């Protein structure tokens, strides 16, 4: 059943939460993804629009706290409560391809996550940014140590920034993060990371010609290419699995899987089943809104190289 209000005819926009303390590099990551959205119409919800270095030329018009970008990006400052901010997105005549929400430095993603599943949205995953050089000290700091640990514990993926600056090559940070979570740790240099890693493998709705294959190193990057060799992509053929077998396969994917995505015609189901992994988060969903013919029975998997 679709809402009578027509909220995008039942389509639910993938919604990624980006957590991490002040100075971890969240803004740098958002900046990079906003500039290199790989064809997505992206809505980035940020704590401070001024901190996002969107070129003035990209901005078509400026209404209140909402920036409409010609390049297909929208930035909102999270000025008010989540409810009102999300209503601003729901009011868009066309759904965006993806929503990326930057939390405050003390935001605990697990507590915010229910919002990412509300009307018009579905939780894609939780990405937490940790400053390699700072995280060990932060996790031990008065007042906020347990908040830092809670952020890491809720992560599906950990982006470890400024690894090149750490004296020990990031060994202490890695061991701290590993003591809290088994989520894949991706090292990020200069905030350069592929949007497909942060946002997943959803094809943009506005560009049907785009394949579901990730573009690992887009040549159009205006800064520098994503570091080559950090990830590898593979295709897993699912065949004619039952739903239970698909779930089993998904849960059994290795722990270093960063992203996996596929649309499968399960032998015991009448609607296509979407298989979806973001680091530790593994889920299958019935996609009654999609045609069975779109199911190609394979998973695209991005792993740490």
């Amino acid at each position: 059943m679709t809402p009578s209000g027509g909220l995008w005819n039942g389509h639910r926009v993938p919604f990624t939460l980006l957590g991490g303390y002040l100075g971890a590099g969240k803004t740098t990551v958002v900046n990079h993804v906003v500039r290199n959205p790989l064809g997505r119409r992206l809505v980035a919800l940020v704590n401070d629009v001024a901190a996002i270095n969107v070129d003035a030329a990209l901005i078509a018009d400026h209404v209140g706290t909402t920036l409409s970008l010609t390049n297909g990006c929208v930035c909102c400052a999270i000025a008010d409560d989540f409810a009102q901010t999300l209503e601003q997105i729901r009011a868009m005549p066309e759904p965006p391809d993806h929503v990326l929400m930057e939390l405050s430095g003390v935001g605990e993603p697990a507590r915010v996550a229910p919002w990412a599943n509300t009307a018009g949205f579905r939780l894609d995953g939780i990405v937490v940014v940790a400053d390699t050089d700072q995280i060990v000290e932060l996790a031990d700091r008065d007042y906020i140590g347990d908040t830092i640990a809670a952020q890491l514990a809720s992560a599906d993926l950990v982006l470890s920034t400024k690894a090149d600056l750490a004296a020990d090559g990031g060994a202490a940070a890695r061991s701290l993060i590993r003591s809290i979570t088994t989520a894949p740790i991706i090292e990020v240099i200069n905030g350069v990371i592929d949007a497909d890693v942060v946002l997943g493998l959803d094809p943009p709705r506005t560009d049907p010609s785009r394949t579901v294959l990730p573009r690992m190193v887009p040549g159009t990057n205006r800064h520098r290419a994503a570091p080559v060799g950090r990830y590898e992509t593979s295709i897993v053929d699912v065949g004619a699995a039952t739903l239970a077998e698909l779930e089993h396969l998904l849960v059994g994917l290795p722990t270093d899987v960063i992203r996996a995505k596929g649309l499968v015609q399960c032998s015991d189901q009448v609607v296509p089943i979407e298989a979806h992994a973001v680091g530790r988060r593994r889920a299958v969903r019935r996609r009654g809104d999609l045609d069975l013919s779109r199911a190609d029975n394979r998973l695209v998997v991005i792993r740490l190289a």
Partner: protein
Amino acid sequence: MSQPGIIHRARRVVTLDHAVPTAEAVAVRDGVILGVGSVEQMRAAWGPLPVDDTFADSVLLPGFVEAHSHSLEGAIWAWEYAGYFPRLGPDGELRKGCQTFDELIDLLRRLDAELDDPTESLTVWGFDPIYFPGERLAAHHLDVVSETRPICVIHASLHLITVNTALMEREGFADGCDVEGVPVGGDGRPIGELQEPPAMSLARREMLALWEVLADPASLRRFADMARVVGCTTVTELGATRLSTDDELALWTDAAAVDGFPARLVALLNPARGQPGTPDEIAQHTVAIRARSTPRARFGVVKMVLDGSIQGFTARLNAPGYLPHPDGTQRPNGIWLIEPEQFSAWFDAFHRHHVTVHTHVNGDQAVDLLLDTAEAAIASHSWLDHRHTAQHTQLTTAAQYRRMARLGMNANIFSNHIFYWGDQHRSITVGPDRAARMDACSTADREGVRYSVHSDASVTPLGSLHTMWCAVNRVTASGDVLGPDERISVDRALRAVTVDAAHQLRMDHEIGTIEAGKLADFVALGEDPYDVDPIALKDIEVRGTVVGGEITGPPA
């Protein structure tokens, strides 16, 4: 042009001014108090002024000052009240409430019949499931009222709503829903209860309407009307509003400029609510908007929020933290709403620009962070009369109050909690010992901290007599006395809701006592609070208020 003035004769004028504690009459001209004394003394001093006997049988006190409330208290009356207890509305009429499910259904049927548009939704508020332990309100109860009109029942906690099937169908989740906080029945369909704000947001139009009504000047009028009904002449909006743009400021000044507006509104700026700029620029903006203040709409004080609530397990506690879950597992500590660095940057800028900062600190760890931050700011810039205030300050220890006193800070203590959640604090959140020292007015007195007590309306109902009653008696909803040693005297409580509340709003030179030169803001009571049994404080009749010399009236 100056008016001739008037003398209000009362059964007694209780001034809270130590020089003239009681009098027969108070003389007023141009909204300002000329003097207090006998009618004869006033005439001898100020000439043959007319005598008004409106309050001849009443006791006049300084109008109550609610130093921590929210305008939602007025906004919510856009819809009908459906709570368990009888409650006065902003029109002064008593709503009898709903003591049974049948009464709730009858109320909804009556309201349903009043609506013409069959698609217009019907919202009521204040429903409290705690008083209906036998049965859980669900969609099927509400479907009896209408199968086509969306119905939304907002619970008293404001963290829960119950909706009917028509509403779920309109939003497309009547058959199932994967949002957290949407319980389903045996058939896998949602039962109609939406728990916590993410799930509540599924009732999109009703929740949007709630946001919209907050920006409606009529809500501020109802807020002031509500204040009049309970005897408050000054009420506050503690930082839940935005005060950036001209329009946002004009909402307050225009609403309060209407003739006969029955209260003074003090709206505090919250830098975390989308206020653009560096800390310095935000502090300068706060100073600048002081000049936009009008007699009945005031700006220029700041509010920040550090942690959550104790009953929601989101306040930040020092060891040993919350009691464990019933199954023995440890509860995590609560949440921070601002990074310590950001809080410090804002606090320091406000302090340097001489802007008083009120900080929401429910848990004792949040109090520590406030004290550390305030101490650094106060040490780096000399401003002796800062009046920085700890708000709620519910678990503050004697050691923290000693530190607060040395730093020259104030407190605003959430005494209403003792009645509304005291039983739960004792058994579920912190245990009997820490519950006994919650909202520790007597300790604050002993350690030398000036304080007010508050309702945080609409978290609990607005009403200074009730808040005083809580601080004086410390009686919980179940009838027990929680921490009897923290009880305070009627005199102390009365000062807390008048002059000491005014002090932390930087208005004690204008309001809070009845003395010559101050604004003529009074409350007229049926009894003298000093004369009644303290347990009857909350039942004293409020007969009216005077704001700026004008006797306020019910809404037209």
